[in-house]
């Protein structure tokens, strides 16, 4: 546990500005009105199966998956479906959403929940549970967990199941918090996953201080709940948490990469709650932070809670915020207003004082900083030139290797919107290919 693993080249040291002071996790107020987007995953929006005026129970299915990449959506609160709304998802897409006003009694809240004896279930039953409860893997963003597991099982034996608890983006803290608060549940979650995946090893990757605590706790767990877990401390250099960089850190090679199934603590927790408590995904750990937030904290909030409510709960804003971001400041997306609801892929909401910089005022001066910093050993300056010259041309095939980590745009002294342009070019290529 003493050597710190890291990736090979590139990356940036970020100051962890205003990380929540790690006050105990609070339960957020339940939303009086929940806005439940039907598209909270990579695939098509879920098909709505309730009508306006229907009474729904807490955790009741309101949307069924349609096709690959789509997942079930549940009502986060008991209440009445008041109608539909359109919400702008972070990243610019729009989705239909159900507006549910909270009413009636909670069946789960505050009651002792039975633990389900899942060890007797078959793999198929376990997968079905994960699917029904709408567990979503946020690595990569928004693939239903059951689908991801299914795909991994089909391609053969796994070398490692990796619980990736690394968070190096400024302010983000939810995954680390889950590791600190819920290690016993995570261990059981990993147990469930390893039953499905049969990996050769189970590895937990995270910051050294986080792992020390976690290792101490897992050591004292009853044997039956704790699979053999290896703890590998990793660097805090951004973007250590991205899958390629985790693999480089853990295995020192990428070529003939070991077969790895990577999962975040929040998704592991979803797997645990789906199976053990038969509980759908209706709650997320949300880091509420940023320069403009009065009392940054980590809240357990219901999916569908408008993010404005959460900011208010954290004491509101200190001055008018300029930018509201869902998830991290390097890879997240800015949102247009405070009505955007918490999604199943949300782990943070940030309010920053500055407006997004007007970019592209300068030209690339070939300083080479982006090349030095790119963790994927790409040449962002050349990619930029190619993208500038002929949008969507062949030279952009290398964009496939770009992880959109944001490092190049962060470091560029000319403030070129490199990552934004790469993301747009990638989207253009994808839609072009699917046509």
């Amino acid at each position, binding site marked *: 546990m003493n050597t710190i693993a890291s990736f090979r080249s590139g990356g*940036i040291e970020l100051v962890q500005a205003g990380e929540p002071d790690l006050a105990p996790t609070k339960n957020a107020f339940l939303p009086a009105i929940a806005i439940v987007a039907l598209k909270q995953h990579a695939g098509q929006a879920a098909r709505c199966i309730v009508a306006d005026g229907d009474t729904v129970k807490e955790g009741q299915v309101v949307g069924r998956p349609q096709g690959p990449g789509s997942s079930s959506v549940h009502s986060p609160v008991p209440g009445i479906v008041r109608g539909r709304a359109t919400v702008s998802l972070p990243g610019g897409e729009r989705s239909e959403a159900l507006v549910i006003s909270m009413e009636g009694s909670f069946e789960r809240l505050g009651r002792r929940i039975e633990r389900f004896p899942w060890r007797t279930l078959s793999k198929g039953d376990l997968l079905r549970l994960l699917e029904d409860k709408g567990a979503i893997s946020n690595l990569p963003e928004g693939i239903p967990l059951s689908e991801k597991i299914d795909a991994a099982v089909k391609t053969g034996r796994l070398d490692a199941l990796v619980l990736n608890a690394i968070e190096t983006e400024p302010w983000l803290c939810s995954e680390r918090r889950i590791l600190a608060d819920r290690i016993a549940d995570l261990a059981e979650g990993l147990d469930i996953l390893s039953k499905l995946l049969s990996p050769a090893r189970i590895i937990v990757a995270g910051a050294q201080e986080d792992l020390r605590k976690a290792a101490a706790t897992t050591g004292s767990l009853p044997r039956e709940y704790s699979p053999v877990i290896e703890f590998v401390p990793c660097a805090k250099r951004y973007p250590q948490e991205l899958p390629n960089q985790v693999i480089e850190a853990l295995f020192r090679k990428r070529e003939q990469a070991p077969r790895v199934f990577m999962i975040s603590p929040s998704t592991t927790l979803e797997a645990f709650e789906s199976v053990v408590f038969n509980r759908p995904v209706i709650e997320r750990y949300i880091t509420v932070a940023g320069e403009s937030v009065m009392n940054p904290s980590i809240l357990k909030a219901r999916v569908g809670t*408008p993010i*404005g409510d959460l900011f208010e709960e954290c004491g509101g804003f200190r001055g008018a*915020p*300029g*930018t*509201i*971001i869902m998830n991290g*400041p*390097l*890879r*997240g*997306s*800015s*949102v*247009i*207003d*405070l*009505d955007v609801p918490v999604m199943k892929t949300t782990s943070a909401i940030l309010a*920053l004082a500055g*407006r*997004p*910089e007007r*970019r592209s*005022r*300068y*030209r*690339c*001066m*070939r*300083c*080479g900083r982006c*090349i030095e910093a790119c963790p*994927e*050993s*790409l*040449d962002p*300056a*050349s*990619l930029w*030139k*190619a993208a500038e010259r002929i949008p969507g041309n062949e*030279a*952009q*095939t*290398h964009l496939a*290797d770009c992880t959109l980590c*944001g490092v190049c*745009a*962060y*470091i*560029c*002294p*000319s*403030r070129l*919107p490199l*990552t*934004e342009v790469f*993301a*747009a070019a990638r989207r253009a290529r994808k839609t072009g290919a699917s046509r």
Partner: protein
Amino acid sequence: MRREAFSVSGAPFISSRQTVRSISFTIVVTLVPVVLWSMFLFGPTTLAVIGTAVASAVAVEFAVGLARGGSTIHDGTAVLTGLFVGLGMPPGVPLFIPALATAFAIGIVKCCFGGLGSNWMNPALAGIAFAHANWPASMTAWVMPRLITGVEGISGATPLGFVRTAAGPGGVSAMNALKAGGYSGSALSRAATGFLNANFFDRLGARLPDGYMDLLLGIRPGCIGETAIIALLAGSVLLLVVKIIRWQIPATALLVFAALIRFFGDTGSSPFEGDVLFAISSGSVVLVLFYMATDPVTSPVSRRASIVYAAGIGALMFLFRRFGLYSEGTAFAVLIANCLVPVLEEVLPVRSRTRGTK
């Protein structure tokens, strides 16, 4: 429902502190002591020269910006280019020369090749070279610092020029030639040297000969910016520390230059007697290597290529100094290396997976 709308853009939402503007600004700040020192040495004429160059640079950049639609003044590079040209002028030069040299630098070299980022030659150095080519007499009319003569405007030869004419191929060391020829050191220098010897070098069993202090303090004729070597070195260290410039280029060039001087001799000295300290401190080597050869736009992106580029500059500087006709070979050395950058980048490309997508 809330109605506040926030502006939306693509990630990332935070960025490093360095921008083109802040980088230009920092470089300008590191040069302020140099300017002040030169004013102290040569009087307010230096400020007039520098002011003219900067004003001309900004004006031309502004005009080009107007013509093109889209001002580029705010990035601060025009100010920097003007400052560099001003620093490359002799103190008493007629003011039209810095004005025209800067206009050439910005109007032709920088903007005609597409503005910042596309120019393949360092604009400031091209401006200085342009001035040397057109007005050689004015550009080599050096004056003695007031500290030596007590009055302004007495002309004198640069140490290098002096050694060249005074020593001939005689084989005396440069410093001795200077002294034998009656090149007077300043009282300040003698005092400083004495102080350093008494308090520092004596304890190490060494002695700093008289004269070098003058060179390092810039108490000698020379162009405005090359005189205050100490201030330049301090500024360079600062730029290295905040990672605005990379050490590889100046280090490699200095190493090659020093080695060649050592083994093949400086101008006016025989092989193996080259005086490295004299060579580095008596011309514009420091200014050009740390401030101009490191220009990101005109130096190679690829680290491997930049080593070759820097070695080339070191070698060319040596050649120009040893055999050249004019003492300002440093500017030409970098300009020639600038022209070779595309070839170097082709032969030693950036090591990346994006190869071949140019």
